[in-house]
């Protein structure tokens, strides 16, 4: 089988990554696997670091971790079937990176002290309200710097929101500075800015 890191437009400069070309699209692959790798931290970082390297040379759409295909023909068939969507997505992410912003509350989300179903619901609604407010504060500052954004409220206990912004490479510094300002302004939660990432959250432009 072949493991697929991502899809772009140019031959990789990195000799350790192989490529399969089809009709102007280039898939970045690895052939030394017999099955999808397990999602260990090392393998996850390898996937991400390989993509970060590839992104230095041009637009890349990252594959979801663990994507393997039977052979080159199977991969070419995918590139052929989805070439229009893939090209649209590549045009969207060209020259841009994904930046992450999330807010962590200091205490665990559920304290287990709600004595009734009603209190539980009230507490849950209150968390949603606070999360929406925090996401709004961040977005008011960061949204104008980005081409697109996605945000998930309360993705897990303790996290108010996790957002991803598609940002021009030239504006990464500005984005980080604004994220720091948001962090300084928000006291009830720890606002964390990560990236640049490959555009995982913006790989399906058709949606």
């Amino acid at each position: 089988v072949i493991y697929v890191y991502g899809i772009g437009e140019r031959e990789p400069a990195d000799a350790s990554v192989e490529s399969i070309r089809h009709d102007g699209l280039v898939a970045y692959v690895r052939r030394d696997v017999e099955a999808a790798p397990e999602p260990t931290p090392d393998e996850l970082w390898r996937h991400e670091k390989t993509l970060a390297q590839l992104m230095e040379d041009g637009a890349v759409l990252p594959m979801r971790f663990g994507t393997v295909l039977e052979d080159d023909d199977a991969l070419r068939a995918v590139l052929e079937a989805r070439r229009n969507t893939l090209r649209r997505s590549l045009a969207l992410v060209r020259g841009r990176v994904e930046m992450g912003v999330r807010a962590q509350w200091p205490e665990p989300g559920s304290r287990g002290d709600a004595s009734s179903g009603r209190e539980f619901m009230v507490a849950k609604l209150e968390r949603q309200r606070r999360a929406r407010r925090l996401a709004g504060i961040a977005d008011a500052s960061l949204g104008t710097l980005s081409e697109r954004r996605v945000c998930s409220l309360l993705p897990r206990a303790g996290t108010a929101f996790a957002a991803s912004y598609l940002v021009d490479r030239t504006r990464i510094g500005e984005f980080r500075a604004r994220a720091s300002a948001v962090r300084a302004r928000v006291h009830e939660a720890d606002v964390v800015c990560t990236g640049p990432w490959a555009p995982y959250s913006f790989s399906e432009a058709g949606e």
Partner: protein
Amino acid sequence: VSDTLAQHQEVTLVDLLDRLLGGGVVIAGDITLAVADIDLVQVSLRALVASVDTLAEGSG
């Protein structure tokens, strides 16, 4: 910068998991993880997220 990345590497594992396992191009009909492996993935993830939470609490 690399120092900072190393420092925050454990914490950003959560961000990494969100993106690598929840985002990216999904190919319908590919050979993804076998059913048995999916359980393994979820178990590994729970362990990872738990250890990240512990680290985050410890560093506070």
